[in-house]
């Protein structure tokens, strides 16, 4: 399985990528929404995108809206991984088309549980 990790923090990209790679994912990284869209336009379509909210150039909400506006990317699962914990923001992200929402700070177990809910945990990890 493939995952695109989108966060303006290099440290956070490394942490999230490392966690997902531990679950068997092949990962790529993007520093903001536009860079992530460029990856998708290249044709590298992941099963999962993890998306920070506050980023320069294009924020996470704009990215979610852009992905949802493209029928060719309908199969991509979008998971917000962000410190934006306000209830109204969570509702906005889900309404825009995000499938799941993980609050920073998170643990590897929290990511694992969300992936299991989404059916995106490789079987050998789920066992």
């Amino acid at each position, binding site marked *: 399985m493939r995952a695109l990790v989108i966060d*303006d*923090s*290099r*440290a*956070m990209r*490394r*942490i999230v990528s*490392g966690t997902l790679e531990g679950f068997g994912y092949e990962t790529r990284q993007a520093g903001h929404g536009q860079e992530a869209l460029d990856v998708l336009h290249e044709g590298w379509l992941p099963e999962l995108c993890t998306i920070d909210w*506050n*980023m*320069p150039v294009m924020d996470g909400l704009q990215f979610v809206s852009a992905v949802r506006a493209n029928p060719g990317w309908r199969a991509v699962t979008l998971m917000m991984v*962000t*410190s*934006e*914990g*306000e209830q*109204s923001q969570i509702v906005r992200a889900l309404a825009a088309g995000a499938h799941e929402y993980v*609050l*920073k*700070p*998170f*643990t590897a177990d929290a990511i694992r549980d969300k992936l299991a809910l989404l059916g995106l945990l490789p079987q050998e990890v789920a066992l």
Partner: protein
Amino acid sequence: MTAPVITQLLDEATVQEIADQAWSALVGEDEVLVPVPGELGPDTRSSWVEIVGPWSGTVVLTCDRDTAEELTRALLREHAPAELEPEDVDDALGELANVVGGNVKAVLPGPSFLGLPEVGPAPRVTSPADTCRVDALWRGRPLTISVQGTPAPDADPAPSYENGVPL
């Protein structure tokens, strides 16, 4: 209507709890912030995020530069490069401020806007009465987390200092 000051909205225990959660999840499961004040050295680094809403201000994390490097290594764990670049340290420190700031914002009245993390010399405390500060030790090294208000552009700064509690 007068904007609230931060001490009306949250207390030090809440800031400490938010920081504890951030430390345990990001820095390491067994990493603790001991709520004991320590003395910062002359060479400090700060990171902060701005919150704009019914209460506006910044959430500032300040520590000594070598503490910032150790924090970065702890945060990145096995993903840390052999040689840390200054950008790695700024990025890690900024992300810690971002996570603490985002969770502080979540307990404040909304809607509020959270800015992008910035790193540099600590922003000045403009109103001690509108500041909630936690001093702590991490691995015996001092650091501070300060939630400090920004005066409204048209506000008269004088009232903010009435009954102000010196830091």
